[in-house]
């Protein structure tokens, strides 16, 4: 498996025959992993509940939000997917928009390549669940001596999944049984993207990419109308970015150390 460091960590573990069984390593890692996730729980509760209530308020069956939470498992993209489920059957558009909205995850993967190396059978689960919050927690994390870091990563990934899907389920099922007029609560999705846009805007020196997104989308909305603008907008954004590459690519195509390791703040801001 991994280099000597792991053996040293194993040596430091409490002595005794049962100390290093799989179950014992898992159990030792859990409290540490759980403590790491606590600061994010309020955020998961708010976003998960909002998402669940939103999905129900726009007329989706209550199973849709939790199902998307475990299958798509990417907050912002799930809001868009929920919205698209209320319109016509367009799986290719949905595929394209989710792919582009989640493009940032590519860098989480690259950034975690070394850390996740040697995770064995946990690798697939860690990859599947590498959401913004999990990346933000695991990327800078150092497991204490005697604690199996792969179990810590796995617990953090799993706990975040449970929080997100759990709160989404509670939100959608509670809202579906609530005798309250929820008309207008779907504004929460507009509010979400305004907030993310603002955070992104305030964190960047160069606003051209943000403006390209906004401008191309507006132009396509005017040209194609509300039902058909999404795919042309996505394609024209990619086309514009490629056309303006010389101007926009400040890393000068060096592969960019900056590009391959997004900061924790960026990860959290991106939800």
């Amino acid at each position, binding site marked *: 498996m991994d280099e000597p460091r792991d053996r040293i960590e194993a040596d430091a573990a409490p002595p005794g025959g049962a100390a290093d069984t799989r179950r014992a390593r898992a159990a030792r890692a859990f409290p540490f992993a759980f403590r790491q996730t606590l600061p994010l729980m309020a955020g998961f509760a708010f976003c998960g509940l909002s998402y669940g209530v939103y999905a129900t308020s726009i007329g989706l069956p209550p199973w849709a939000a939790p199902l998307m939470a475990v299958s798509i498992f990417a907050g912002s993209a799930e809001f868009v997917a929920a919205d698209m489920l209320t319109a016509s059957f367009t799986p290719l558009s*949905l595929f394209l928009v989710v792919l582009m909205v989640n493009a940032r995850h590519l860098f989480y993967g690259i950034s975690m390549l070394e850390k996740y190396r040697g995770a064995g059978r946990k690798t697939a689960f860690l990859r599947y669940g590498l959401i913004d919050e999990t990346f933000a927690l695991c990327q800078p994390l150092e497991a204490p001596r005697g604690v199996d870091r792969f179990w810590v990563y796995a617990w953090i990934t799993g706990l975040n999944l449970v929080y997100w899907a759990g709160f989404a389920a509670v939100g959608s099922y509670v809202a579906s049984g609530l005798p309250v007029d929820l*008309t207008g609560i779907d504004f929460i999705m507009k509010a979400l993207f305004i907030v993310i846009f603002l955070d992104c805007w305030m964190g960047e020196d160069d606003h051209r990419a943000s403006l390209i997104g906004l401008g191309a989308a507006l132009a396509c909305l005017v040209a194609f109308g509300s039902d058909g603008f999404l795919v042309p907008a996505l394609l024209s954004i990619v086309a514009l970015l490629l056309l303006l590459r010389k101007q926009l690519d400040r890393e000068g195509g060096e592969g960019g150390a900056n590009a391959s390791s997004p900061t924790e703040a960026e990860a959290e801001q991106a939800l």
Partner: protein
Amino acid sequence: MSALEMLVMIAAGALATQITRWASFLAFPTAEKTPKAVTYLGTVLPATMWGLLIVYCFRTSDPLSGYHMAPELLAAAVVVGLHLWKRNMSLSMIGGTLVYMLLIRTVFPLA
């Protein structure tokens, strides 16, 4: 949309997400081996997406008729104001949404 169509849509979204999470593992084993165009797009795409998604959210709002988007724009202004003031995501979202729900029940009732 039927339940089956919904499941196909959800599967398409799940596949797209998993591609972004597995691409580095399967195709681009190191930052150096990732094609420059992919690295570049991955760097600039995220910023463009939030603007696109705002337009997407407001796509069915009509500035030329009805209340000329007054309730949406007022509530959006509340979101922006709260966020510039406190920088608290939950507060900005709850504040703006409550204002919107209040506006469409009082000043700008839906037809």
